[in-house]
């Protein structure tokens, strides 16, 4: 292989066409073929020479990236004038153009209007260089602080969760511990080479350091608190910090519990905050979220389809939350759906089923459609378009029929605009022109005429965009789901309700591990609030205090003591019959609550439990429950 590469090195020469093009650019036409060949060889050689010198500068600059200044310095070495004004720290965007059988790459220098420069506000002054000290190692052990890399990479997290036996083999713990002590956080590579001494990660105790506890407390409080600036910071931290994996179980529990509580209380703001946390977690590239989908997906689905998400459905913009959650759902389907867990198909099934149900309320209906529509054009084509007529009739009944309630009407309006928005672009693609209103009416019923105009608009827009694409370089702007709409909508209308927003977090923070624990090794007892909500608003709370020390068992009668000594995944089996449409069949739901201070083994067991616990039926039923009719029944299901 090396040989092949070398041969390539040997023969790489600039094409003679480039020589011609360059000659033309300086006014020399009709360059002979031989001179081109000679020139290109010479130029290639010189360029290689300069590149080699530039590498020297890169090495001494202690960088891995060759910069334009390195080239400049290399040119200077050779007494050649450097390329002035060609400074770029990052990638240099060369443009490609072809025409007349020629292919060219060139650097586009845009013409800039001076007045533009003068009128634009000055950019922020770059931050000055500063020094920051931290402990990389304390007497040979690397402390796990944010400044140090996470002790476990995503890959490790994955193997830990999928193949727990591989991680720690019985009888080798001791060896692993010694190795771990000596090697600290050895990079994963190179370990495999040690024969006999397979480096084992010692059983990681899932206790959080004091710093982590503080961090968790700060982050969760900021995420659900009232200060938007703080929240943005916290979300940013969740989305980027690489050392969060140990806190991931807590975050996911926080979110799922938070959703449960707040759906019941119809606290729209908090639900939005929690969904933004989900989004941030999903954005974090170092986290292996697959382990916690069983908690996150129901929470997200709840936010999409729940019948009521806010106190005043006629005023509050809970639609935005549904949209946002639907986008989240689509994103997680895209990232996490595999042939084994079948998330996408299961989600689709869930949405479709409830959409087809006549009794479904407009809010849930909206959520189902949004959820489906976000899954992509194919889903829209196969599932939504065929039902446009039926849906149109239903909307018509509400819009033009006798006024039942204002809420229904608003719901129907939103469903209508949602359908129009999503279907128009798809129809524009699959339906041949011309767009005939009558034709549309026959095809899609009540919604037909409106669809027709939307489709036409979509077509003109597409044409416009295509033109733009032709004219400029291709810039792909991907719409990123963000949710800020609701904030503004809320702040005006929910003045009096802010106390409740603040109140809830304070109770939620109880879930965080006790902060400020001194560095003694015993894990802190963790408190959980499990809210069991019976019909209506009446709720009972059970505070389960758990500590992961060997002897302690959860202080609650409803919780069966967990399988082995130290691992206590709280598996609660609850059977009951849901009211309403799901009443026909008894529901079984496993709720796995991972305990913050339990040992790592708990994770392993839990992960082995996982497949069964979120097997398709239980997941479906769980989702169904959460979007089912009576608000009480929907959310109290877990407990």
């Amino acid at each position, binding site marked *: 292989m*090396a*040989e092949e590469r*070398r*041969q390539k*090195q*040997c*023969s790489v020469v600039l094409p003679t066409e480039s020589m011609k093009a360059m000659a033309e650019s300086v006014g020399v036409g009709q360059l002979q073929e031989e001179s081109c060949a000679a020139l290109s*060889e*010479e130029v*290639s*050689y010189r360029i*290689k*020479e300069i590149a*080699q010198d530039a590498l*020297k*500068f890169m*090495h*001494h*600059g*202690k*960088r*891995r*990236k060759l*910069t334009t*200044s390195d080239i400049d*310095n290399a040119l200077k*070495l050779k007494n050649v004038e450097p390329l002035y004004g060609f400074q770029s*720290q990052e990638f240099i965007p060369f443009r490609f153009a072809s025409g007349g059988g020629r292919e060219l790459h060139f650097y586009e220098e845009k013409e800039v209007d001076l007045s533009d420069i003068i009128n634009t506000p000055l950019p922020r002054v*770059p*931050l*000055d*260089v*500063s*020094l*920051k*000290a*931290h*402990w*990389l*190692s*304390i*007497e*040979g052990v*690397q402390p796990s602080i944010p*400044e*140090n*890399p996470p002790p476990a990479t995503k890959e490790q997290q994955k193997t830990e969760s999928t193949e727990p036996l591989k991680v720690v083999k019985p009888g080798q713990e001791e060896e692993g511990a010694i190795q771990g002590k*000596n*090697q*600290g*956080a*050895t*990079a994963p*590579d*190179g370990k495999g080479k*040690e024969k006999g001494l397979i480096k084992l990660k010692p059983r990681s105790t899932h206790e959080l350091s004091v710093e982590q506890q503080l961090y968790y407390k700060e982050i969760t409080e900021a995420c659900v608190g009232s200060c938007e600036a703080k929240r943005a910071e916290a979300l940013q931290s969740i989305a980027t910090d*690489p050392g969060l994996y140990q806190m991931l179980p807590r975050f996911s529990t926080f979110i799922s519990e938070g959703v449960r509580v707040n759906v019941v209380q119809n606290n729209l703001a908090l639900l939005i905050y929690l969904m933004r946390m989900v989004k941030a977690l999903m954005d974090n590239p170092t986290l292996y979220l697959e382990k916690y989908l069983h908690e996150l997906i129901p929470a997200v689905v709840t936010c999409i389809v729940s019948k009521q998400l806010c106190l005043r459905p006629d005023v509050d913009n809970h639609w935005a939350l549904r949209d946002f959650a639907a986008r989240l759902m689509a994103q997680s389907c895209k990232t996490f759906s595999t042939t084994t867990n079948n998330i996408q198909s299961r989600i689709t099934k869930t949405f479709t089923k409830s959409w087809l149900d006549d009794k479904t309320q407009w809010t849930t209906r909206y959520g189902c459609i949004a959820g489906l529509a976000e899954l992509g054009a194919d889903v829209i084509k196969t599932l939504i378009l065929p039902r446009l007529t039926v849906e149109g009739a239903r909307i018509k009944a509400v819009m033009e029929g006798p006024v039942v309630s204002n809420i229904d009407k608003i719901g129907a309006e939103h469903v209508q605009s949602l359908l129009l928005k999503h279907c128009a672009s798809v129809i524009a693609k699959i339906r041949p022109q011309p767009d005939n209103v009558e034709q549309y009416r026959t095809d899609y019923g009540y919604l037909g005429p409106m669809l027709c105009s939307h489709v036409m608009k979509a077509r003109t827009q597409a044409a416009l965009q295509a033109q733009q694409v032709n004219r400029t370089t291709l810039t792909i702007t991907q719409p990123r789901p963000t949710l800020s709409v609701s904030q503004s909508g809320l702040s005006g209308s929910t003045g009096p309700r802010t106390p409740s927003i603040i109140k809830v977090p304070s109770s939620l923070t109880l879930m965080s591990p006790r902060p400020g624990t001194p560095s003694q090794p015993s894990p802190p007892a963790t408190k959980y609030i499990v809210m069991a909500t019976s019909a209506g608003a009446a709720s009972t709370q059970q505070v389960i205090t758990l500590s992961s020390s060997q002897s302690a068992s959860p202080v609650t009668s409803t919780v069966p003591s967990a399988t082995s000594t130290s691992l206590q995944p709280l598996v609660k089996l609850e059977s009951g019959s849901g009211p309403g449409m799901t009443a026909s069949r008894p529901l079984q739901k496993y709720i796995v609550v991972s305990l913050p201070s339990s040992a790592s083994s708990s994770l392993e067991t839990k992960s082995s439990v996982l497949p069964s616990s979120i097997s398709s039926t239980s997941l479906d039923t769980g989702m169904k429950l959460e979007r089912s009719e009576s608000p009480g029944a929907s959310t109290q299901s877990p407990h």
Partner: protein
Amino acid sequence: MAAVQGGQVDAVEEKDIKTEPSGDGFGNNNANEGRMVSTSPGASAPAGSNKTAAGAPEDQQTLLAVLQFLKKNNLTESVEILRREAGLPENSLDPNGADSTGAGAGGTTGCVDLEGGDASSLLSRVTVSSSAGAQAPTKAVAEDQPDVNVVLSAYSQQGDPALYEVYYSSLKKFIESVLDCHRAELSQVFYPLFVHMYLELVYNNHESEAKSFFEKFSGDQECYYEDDLRVLSSLTKKEHMRGNETLLDFRTSKFVLRISRDSYQLLKRHLQERQNNQIWNIIQEHLYIDIFDGMPRSKSQIDAMSGSLAGEAKREANKAKVYYGLLKEPEIELPLDDEDEEAENEEGKPKKKKPKKDSMGSKSKKQDPNAPSQSRIPLPELKDSDKLDKIMYMKESTKKIRLGPDTLPSICFYSFLNAYQGLTAVDFTDDSSLIAGGFADSTVRVWSVTPKKLRKVKSAADLNLIDKESDDVLERIMDEKTASESKILYGHSGPVYGISFSPDRNYLLSSSEDGTVRLWSLQTYTCLVGYKGHNYPVWDTQFSPHGYYFVSGGHDRVARLWATDHYQPLRIFSGHLADVTCTRFHPNSNYVATGSSDRTIRLWDVLNGNCVRIFTGHKGPIHALAFSPNGKFLASGATDGRVLLWDIGHGLMVGELKGHTDTIYSLRFSRDGEILASGSMDNTARLWDATKAFDDLETDDFTAATGHVHLQDNSQELLLGTYMTKSTPVIHLHFTRRNLLLAAGSYNA
């Protein structure tokens, strides 16, 4: 002109060797050149050849070269004088003159070995075309703009280009068929042969043959030559050879091979049987075969030592005596909380040595037999402040943690934030109170890492107002208004690649791409001197541990020794075949180690400028060097991610530490030398058990004599810890006086 070891040498050469005090291969032309300069005062040009690296056998040629040069420039008078002085015959300048006379002195007869008879007959056939005289000037003027045509003319002999491949592959077949024990040794021949044959082809405009030759055989070469092969591969035209450094390196320096006598005989017999003149010619002309008696070396032994641009070091290059011991510590009474007593002692006669608790210090009572004499290099007098500092140092050392495999040091990491990849060099003061950073934007910044802020001295006008008699005058001269955490030093006009604090913390040195080394005052935070000399980027600089002297090395392939009060260098250490990438002073200030892109490390004697050690074995440019605190060992790190350990006294490689996956930019021994810390571009700092690495050595006489190293592969046992940073290359390491490890690097988001 292969000067074969143990071969007979003619009279002129013998005389030369006698005049060489050190007998090392390089940079020992002093005697001859002293003569030359004195005899030709009018011709200043040849003086430039002082700096050339020419081995002892080449002195004769150097002379010839100078003569030719003079003749060419019609300096007939000088020619006459020089010739008379050197005792050369009249006709020695005739390039095609009889081989047996002057020109041949350095050439043909030099390579007559034990089988002199048929070897020389063979030689006489092949060496006629290549004129010894014509080649010689290359060596002489390589430092200045070399006359490339002359250099290259060595390649002008015409062989059938089509046959090159045949020659090479027949040799390949032969070497593959010899006994296993010889194969590894003889395989060393491949690379230099390959390069020279390729260059010959290119020179003679056989472009396509050259290409196919390259393609056919470049894959066979050892992977560590890949960088050079890349350079070579781009070289396809005769015109390209002009000014190509790599080529000149190859041409001007003989590739050194170390081969056992048996293997060499085997090779020679084969080549003679086959009448393979082309190859034999190259071996004679461009290779220096160092023949030793005894067992052929194994593949791993060869691999350990090879990799350098010019082959292995000659054995005799590492034979000179090196005084690696430490100097006696100046006797300073440890103050018994009594400042007055101490002051008395310092004034008068230093006596009554007090045993220090320092582990090194205990030895220093007696003169180390390996230590240089105290006055070998004139060292600056200790000032009062230095003595105070020494006392502080001793006090601190008593609180030092004894490190070992079980007690690893804590590492405090200083991250440079917002440096945008612009951090190029870092240094700490010895007492760890200041940290300095050199940046790609030409600035040097100094931070105080203690609560003590950095203050400037007041302006001259303000200083006048100060009561000079007051006790706290040193405090009073400082300008409180200028106190800040950090100071920026502006002055360079290019990236700052090297930085070094003076031991007394009063000065800071910085070296830059702009070709200067600057001396900054840390009292006034201004530039004091700009040392110009390197006309090309200066890659590294370092103060001597005793202050006053400093060394710098750069792209111009030389290292220079300076004194702070001289604007011209005191010594120029020349011999490296490529950029000098890093420079380090020996703890006793008598030696300087330099690492280079030619993948060798050289140790230079400060006293006479001689190169006393050449260490080969690295497979990439060397970017980090560190002496052990006892002065016995040297550690080096290179782009290949390996740390090599060297025994300075014996001139041997004694260890190899594998583990890093990228360039090693910093190496540092703990204060007592138990732990070696290495920092690398792969974002890790690693700790190695240096005690174990050095204790396990048994350097018997045989190994010392032959230079055959047996390295155990025990990197994993020696590795004590690996500490990853998030995204920060570790570019500097420093042990505080209490053995806390400080590391520094810039965070790359």
